[in-house]
């Protein structure tokens, strides 16, 4: 029995209008993502990686084409339906951690567990990212890598089916970046969460089940590494 399809995209386009000018961020993307996959999106700035991730995560809608999450058609969903979809199914991790400075690590995660349907306890989510001992620390008392791990704990606490990461190591040094990648890989492997990671760093591609290369709003290449590497095995 084949693994179920999580996302199906057909002919996705996205055009931004800036006054008279039109910017074509996506120019017809066809894509299928299966449950439990670890996908890395590679490509230069302006290639459409973030736009694609935002449409997959329900933060944006396509100009044309169709995007489905399972049987659900996201391209026709209204704002309320997209909010519900994000709340129930998607965890986001961005380059910047977007933590609330006046809340502790546990309370930042609780922001999500307070409204999710069947979340894991905040302490458990933090234990998953290796911060079980730092539950009551405020963001200002944590390093950049630790803050990013709190952000990951916040993303996974709702037990999402999909974890979407946009440059999660972009603001981190080498060692800390690897630590964060290890956490994402562990979540993908042990919780079965489908993970999509945007990066400029081609070395990270070695961790993926599949690597999609974007260029000029299109998928210009797809590779499957012969052997999936652990974060410890990659270097850049």
């Amino acid at each position, binding site marked *: 029995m084949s693994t179920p399809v999580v996302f199906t995209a057909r002919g996705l386009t996205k055009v931004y209008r800036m006054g008279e000018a039109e910017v074509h961020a996506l120019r017809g993307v066809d894509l299928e993502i299966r449950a439990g996959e670890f996908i890395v999106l590679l490509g230069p700035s302006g290639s459409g990686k973030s736009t694609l991730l935002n449409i997959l995560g329900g933060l944006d809608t396509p100009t044309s084409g169709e995007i489905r999450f399972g049987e659900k058609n996201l391209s026709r969903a209204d704002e309320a339906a997209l909010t519900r979809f994000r709340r129930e199914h998607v965890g986001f991790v961005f380059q910047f951690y977007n933590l*609330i400075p*006046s*809340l502790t690590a546990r*309370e*930042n995660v*609780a*922001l999500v567990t*307070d409204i999710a349907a069947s979340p894991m306890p905040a302490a458990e989510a933090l234990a998953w990212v290796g911060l079980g001992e730092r539950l009551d620390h405020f963001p200002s008392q944590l390093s950049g890598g630790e803050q990013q791990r709190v952000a990951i704990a916040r993303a996974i606490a709702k037990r999402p089916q999909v974890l979407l990461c946009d440059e999660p190591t972009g603001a981190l040094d080498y060692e800390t970046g690897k630590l964060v990648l290890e956490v994402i890989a562990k979540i993908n492997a042990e919780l079965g969460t489908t993970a999509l990671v945007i990066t400029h760093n081609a070395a990270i591609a070695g961790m993926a089940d599949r690597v999609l290369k974007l260029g000029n709003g299109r998928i210009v290449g797809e590779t499957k590494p012969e052997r999936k590497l652990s974060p410890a095995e990659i270097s850049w």
Partner: protein
Amino acid sequence: MRALDRKLARDLWSLKTQVLSIALVIACGIAAFIGSFSTHYSLVWSRDHYYASARFAHVFANAKRAPGSLVEKIRAVPGVVEVETRVVRDAQLSIEGVSPPMIARLIGADFARLPAMNRLTLKSGRWPAPGARGEVVVNQRFLEARGLKLGERVQVLLNGKLERLTLVGTALTPEYIYATRGGGMPDDEWFAVLWTDAQALAAAFNMEGAFNSVLLRMEKGTAPPAAIDALDAILGPYGGLGAVGREDQISH
């Protein structure tokens, strides 16, 4: 407590100085608003209470010379409850050593009875003896502005004849809280209101059996335009100058 509630509580605590300042500013604003509101309410209440106790008229009209027989006709206007007629004339007033002469508004009053409306409040002195000629009550502010004393005399030119009038009392009336002759700014040094014996005043100006000022009290406390129009129609042939409701009365 939910995480968002904690965030709110901590953010407020970290901004406590600003929050306290803003709260104080708001509290001051509310206090000022309540203060102004209650002062206004209190002033309106006091005014209304004073008007009620003085039975301040609801409609005011003046004419050149109207016969006393018109009273019944005026009383028949729908909504009219009470009618009071009187003689009111302006005359030159002089005080020894003061030049130029001043203006006195002489209002005829029957001191033997309580007037039906625009009742006077005696502030000092006494009422003139009923029927006594040459005694007047003056508005308090003129007396004070001129530094006069009760018992002093003023001279008034009544229809070409100089009369000496003795100031025997001071009074207040809602009709002349804002004492002005023609609607300008009040000038208490140069404009006096004198209440004098009605019969003597009528005789001096050849107004016996007639009146040139009429006051009305209305059933609902306000004058409907139709009543004002009816009063104007009645007084028109007698030099009526146009009736006004209390809201347009200058002192109000």
